[in-house]
Structure formats: structure tokens, C-alpha cells
């Protein structure tokens, strides 16, 4: 497997705060990889280590086959970065910033730049100080997307964009995927990751708690089942993998571990199924299950059962 990003056991401390505590991340060539976690989970720190802006305290990080710290300058020719918090020079216009960053990176596709400005509905003649947060974000996005690079590092790129522009952004990322570019998309907007990403890594408290394709992750999670049966069910509550069971006469609602689904369905079928609704778990649920613990009482990070 050709890993564009390969991070293992990454550690980073800021004074007494441990920002990264054994982070693993593997991004394959040509995939759009979602990097999910709440604010403060360490997403930005990890990306800044990958950019060679921060030096790791432990673990290994490889980027495009090189060392992100030592080979920073040469690696940067092959990637583009959109920071989560875009600040622009107050006296440079958006157009100037886009061109400058593109040139410093080693080239910019002029036609694509103009096309992106058009699609994002961005006026490039405005001075940096006069842009709104969303428009500053667009400046950084256009600069990154118009560059001819292999890898895009996007740190919460849609914060500040309105829903219309989020849609434009999704189209653009979809195009990048079709061109064979690799994208690392950090986000806490689950719907965005769900719509765009091939694989996802979920991090919490500086540690990777889950990684895989959405399909793989769903195996680890529960499907909601709502069934209307011919007769009251029998022995459902005793089955392994059934949770939150509610039986109301012949109506049954429950949550089922996805890998136990077949057995549960056999039981339901035995009682005679009149109607059945099953919903795959949304990323929202997946996510909530990881972070609910944090709200309840801080269970140590690790893979879920």
C-alpha cells in the first residue's frame, strides 16, 4: 500500500499539556481521508507536525516518503495547506495572496484559479482586512485548490462557509479525488466527512481511537431496527448484541451490533415480519459514542469493544 501519510505513535507536549499521545494515522494515495475529532483533540497539532512547523517529541511521521521536519521545503512543493484559522495580510488583496502563495509553492493554474474564484463567488480585489471570516477561508481554499500538488492538507476548511459554499467545496474535493489527489480533511462536521471521505480516523485526546472505511466502522457499531411483526417476538432480549430493546405488543425497536444483524433478523423472521425499517448508524452516532464517555467521566482512550 502506497501511504502518502504514515504516522505512528506520534507524541507532542506543550509544556505540561500533552497534545498528542501516540497518534496513528495512515493515508493512502488517492483517497480522501477524514480526520475527525472535537476541538482540542490534536488535529491541528498533528497537521502542523506534518508541515514541519512543529517538531514531534516522539513517534514517527512520514509524509510523501520524506521526513516532514527535515525535508520540509522540498515536500511543501508537493502539497497545499488550508489553515483552520486564516489570517491575511491587511494590505494585500485576496487575489494577490492567492497568486503569491501559489508562486511560493511553485506554480498556480491560472484557468483553475479564475474558475474557482467564480465558483466560490469571491471578489479578489478586496484587501485582506476587509474580508469576512468565510471569505478569508475562500482565499486560502482557492490558493490551495488552484495549485498543482499531490496532497491537500485541509484543516477544518469549511468553518465560516455558508451551506451553498460548502456544497461548492464538496464538488471541488470530489474533483480532486477524480484527479487522483490525496486529501486529508480535518473536520468536526460529520455530514461533510460522511459525504466526502473514503476512510476516516477518529481522534480523541491526542490518540487515534478508530480508523477505517465507513463500511468497516459500521461493523463496529449498531444498526437501529424497527419492525412490525405478526406475533410477539420470542427470546430477542437474550440474544447477544441486542441493545435498548423495546417491545410494544408486536412492534419491536432495538439497536443491534452490526455484526450480529443476521441472527437478529432470523429471530424476527421467525415471528413473521410485516414491516421492517433498518437504519445504518450515522457518523454522528459513531462520534457520540466515542465522546459521550468524555462527558460522563473520562474513560481512557482506546478502541471501543
Amino acid at each position, binding site marked *: 500500500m502506497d501511504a502518502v501519510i504514515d504516522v505512528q505513535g506520534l507524541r507532542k507536549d506543550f509544556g505540561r499539556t500533552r497534545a498528542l499521545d501516540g497518534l496513528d494515522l495512515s493515508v493512502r494515495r488517492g483517497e480522501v481521508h477524514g480526520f475527525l475529532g472535537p476541538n482540542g483533540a490534536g488535529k491541528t497539532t498533528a497537521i*502542523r507536525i506534518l*508541515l*514541519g*512547523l*512543529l*517538531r514531534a517529541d516522539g513517534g514517527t511521521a512520514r509524509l510523501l516518503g520524506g521526513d516532514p521536519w527535515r525535508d*520540509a*521545503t*522540498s515536500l*511543501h*512543493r508537493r*502539497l*497545499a*495547506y488550508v*489553515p483552520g*484559522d*486564516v*489570517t*491575511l*495580510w491587511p*494590505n*494585500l*488583496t485576496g*487575489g*494577490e*495572496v*492567492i*497568486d*503569491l*502563495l501559489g*508562486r*511560493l*509553492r*511553485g506554480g498556480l493554474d491560472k484557468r483553475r484559479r479564475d474558475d474557482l474564484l467564480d465558483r466560490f463567488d469571491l*471578489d*479578489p*480585489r*478586496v*484587501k485582506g*482586512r*476587509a474580508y469576512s471570516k468565510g471569505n478569508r477561508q475562500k482565499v*486560502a481554499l482557492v*490558493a490551495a485548490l488552484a495549485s498543482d500538488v499531490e496532497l491537500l*492538507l485541509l484543516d477544518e476548511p469549511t468553518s465560516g462557509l455558508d451551506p451553498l459554499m460548502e456544497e461548492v467545496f464538496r464538488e471541488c474535493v470530489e474533483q480532486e479525488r477524480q484527479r487522483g489527489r490525496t486529501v486529508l480533511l480535518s473536520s468536526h462536521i460529520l455530514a461533510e466527512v460522511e459525504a466526502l471521505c473514503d476512510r476516516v480516523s477518529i481522534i480523541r485526546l491526542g490518540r487515534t481511537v478508530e480508523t477505517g472505511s465507513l463500511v468497516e466502522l459500521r461493523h463496529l457499531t449498531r444498526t437501529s431496527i424497527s419492525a412490525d411483526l405478526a406475533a410477539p417476538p420470542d427470546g430477542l432480549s437474550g440474544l447477544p448484541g441486542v441493545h435498548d430493546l423495546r417491545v410494544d405488543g408486536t412492534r419491536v425497536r432495538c439497536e443491534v451490533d452490526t455484526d450480529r444483524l443476521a441472527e437478529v433478523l432470523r429471530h424476527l423472521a421467525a415471528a413473521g415480519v410485516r414491516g421492517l425499517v433498518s437504519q445504518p448508524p450515522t457518523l454522528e452516532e459513531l462520534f457520540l459514542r466515542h465522546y459521550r464517555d468524555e462527558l460522563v467521566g473520562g474513560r481512557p482512550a482506546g478502541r471501543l469493544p
Partner: protein
Amino acid sequence: MNGLAGAGALARLVLRRDRVVLPIWVTLLSALPASYAAGTRSLLPTAAEREQYARSIGTNPTFRALLGPVFGSDVGALGAWRSLFVLVIVGLASLLTVIRHTRTDEEAGRRELLGATVVGRHAPLGAALGVTFAADLALGALVALWMVAIGTPVTGALALGASWTVAGWLFAASGGLAAQLTERAGAARGIAIAALSGTYLLRAAGDASGPASGVSWLSWVSPIGWLQQVRPYAGERWWPLAAAAALTVAIGAGAFALSARRDLGAGVLAGRPGPAAAAPALRSPLALAWRLHRGLLAGWAAGFAVYGAVLGASAKGVQDMVAGSSQLADLLRRLGGAAAISDAYLAGVISVTSLGAAAYAVQATLRLRTEEAALRAEPVLATAVSRLRWAASHLAFAVAGPAVVLALLGLLAGLAYGLSVGDVSGQAPRVLAGALVQLPAVWVLTGLATALFGLLPRAAWVAWAALAGFLLVGQFGEIFKLDQKLVDVSPFTHVPKLPGAHLTVTPLAWLVAISAVLVAAGLAGLRYRDIR
């Protein structure tokens, strides 16, 4: 809603935010006229000496241009005359305070936060003007108090204090008006400072050639000229104060009228859109640094050029003035003649002014830290630009910038002095050398700031503290008989005092070497630390 609703609360906010700066400038500036007057009294103890002094400076065009006509030879009158330039600083402090609490807040978006609360449309301007007016009133009262305390007549002290207060009010109101005009605080400051300098230059032009000349009416066009005509300690006239106060009211009313008519965040003069694409030359870190530094460089260069011209033009005047005083003439003979006085004066002023160039060096170097802290370094360093190349692009201005401003200072001072003594080819290179010889000491500050930025970025402010320390050591080291070891810490101690002294190369070479080592240490630190 009442237009001034919430102004009281905002005024308290202004006072809270300025609780350190405001008392400092009010107290420091207020003490200057009394200290000048007391200094005049100890230097020229007899009335006859003072009269002679007043006559000599009163007929010298340079001094008339710089500080205006001399109306009396009384200690108070001479103190008031001498402190005219401080009056300009009072105006400057007042207008900056008002703009800081109006347009700067609005540009930064803080005003929006307040605008959504129960705050009237005029309240921010009202609060800023109210606090500044009160500060100016306190300043005027203190000026009068100090003057009475050193024993000058009460009427004159009141006239002087009142003229200072009204000057503060006038330029506070001008700052308030300028803040309504532009979207940017920087541009508003530029407009208000241009107005202040304009009134001062008009007065200077009118006063330079004396009351009999054809252009003396120019000082009557300038409000600073009016305030001068209050003539403290020399037959006080009160009506010019009323005229200046009336102008203040008119300007203030204009500011309020404009503030009622415009949108939040907008200015009367709309900002222009810039280019949609970058110029072909904007393709390197150095080109970016030029865009970020050119305003600062132009400002310092213009200031140093004007100051150099004034300095050079006044050097001959100092020589003449000293020649007129029996006590000083004695000193002068010991120093080695009239030309030596001019040399010592030029060398002394250039030496103090070079601390200004050092301030610029620190400011330009610490742009690196500003860029990093504002997260603007990150996008650049995420491209194929190495840390060293990025740092070097800014350091180019921290190294070459002070050289440019010092060269302008020396060049203009040398030309002006050369013209006044009729020896341009002889004097211009000497004075220019006097300015350029300061450069190695200035670079030590560039080096120190770079070292701090690279090794201890959070302690970068220490560069400013060091500069303040060097200033104190240089100004007061001899007066307070400080230990020579302490005085030697300042790089400026080791610079030969040109023109006049011998040029010694060894200390200069040392200073350059120290600067280079500091810069190298800073860059090495930058390579190995986190960018945050």
C-alpha cells in the same frame, strides 16, 4: 435612542484601557515647561543675560521657525517659548488617544460588539473625546501648577496651561473628525497627523522671517500660531484662546455630524478595491516583506530626513547663540572654538537620534514575531519557503532600513549645515559620517531582537526593554555618575562621537561582529524551534 446613551460606561472603559498610558503622558509632558524655565534660570541667572539671550534667539530665523517668536525675556516667557514643540506632542497624544478609541476599535470589530448593546450612535466618539478633553484639562492645570511652583507669576502660568489645554482639545477634535473619514485607523492617524504638522509648518514659515516680512500672515492661518499669540508672561492675550476653542467646537460638531451619517465600519472616504491579481514581481518572500515593510520604512525615512534638515539648519544657530552668552562663551573657548560647539551639538543630537533608528530596527525585526503570532507566517512556511529564507526577507529591512534612515539623517543634516556655513562639500561628508558611524550600534539591537525571536520568542519584548535601558544609560549615565561598567553595556557608548572626534574602527568592528553573532544565534534557534 439617545445618541450618547452608554457614553459614561464607555468613558470608564477608555479610562480602564488607558489607565497606565494616559497618566504617564499627562504627568511627563506637564512638567516640561517648568523644567525648561527652571533650566533657563540656572543657566542665565541675571535679567541682562536673559535679555541678551532672548534678543539673539528672537532674531535667529532658525529658532523663530522651530519655536516661534520670543515675546519676553522673563523666565516664564522663555520656558513657554522653549516648550512650543511639546505643545505639538500634546496635540499628537490627544489625537492618537481619540483615534485609538474610535476608528481603531471599529476597524478591529470591537465597536460592533459594543454597538449591539445599549450604546448610542455618538457614544464611542463622545466617550473618547470626553476622556481626552478631561486629560488635556488636567494637563493644563498641572502645567500651570508647576509653573507657579517654580515661582513664575500666576496669570502667565494660567495662560500657558490654558493654551496647552486648548491645543489638546483642538487636535483631539481633529482626531475625532479624521476617524470618521477613513475605514482604516492608520489612514485616520495619517490625516490627523498631517493636519497637525501642516499647522506647525504654516506657523514655522510665517514666523521664520519675522513680523515685517510678507509671509508673516501665514502664522495667523495656523491655530498653533493663535495659541502662541496668547503670549504667556508677556502681556497675556485671551481672545486667541476663544478663537481656538470655537474652532474646536466646529471641528467636533463636524465629527459628530459625520458619525451620525455613516454606517458602522464605513468611512466618508470609501476604501478603493486593489488589484485582482498579484504583480509579476510579487513572487518571493522578499517581495512580500517589501509590501509589509515599505510603509514603515517610508515613515521613518521621511521623519529622519525632515529631522536631519532641521538639525543641520539649527547647528549654526546654536553656535551663534552660545557665542552671545558670556558663561557659555567661556566654555566654548575651552572646547576649542565656535565650530567645535556645532560639531558637539551635531554629534550629540545624532547620537540620541540613532536610538530612534534602533527603535526602528527592533520594530522591523519583531515584525517576524508579529507575523508568527498572527498566524501569517504559517501559510508562507507551508510553501516551499524555508524558515531561514523567510526570516532573511524581514531581516533585510531590519539591517538595511536603519542604514537608509541614518544616511538620510546625516545627508540632510550635512547639507543644511553646510549651506548655513557656506561649506557644503566640507561639512556634508563629515556629518554623514557622524550618522553612519552609529549603524553598528543600531545593528546590535537588530541582532538582539533576532536572537530573542529565534531563541526565546515569548520574551521578544526584552529587546524594547534593552533599548530603553541603553537610552537611560546614555542620557543619565554621566549625570548620575553610574558605574562605567554599566554605561559600557550600551553599544552606543562605544561609537566615536563624530563629527569632531577621531574615527576609531576597532569598536565598530566589534559591534558588527557582536551583531552578526546575535543574528546567527537567532537564526539557528529559529531552525530548531516550533512555529507557534
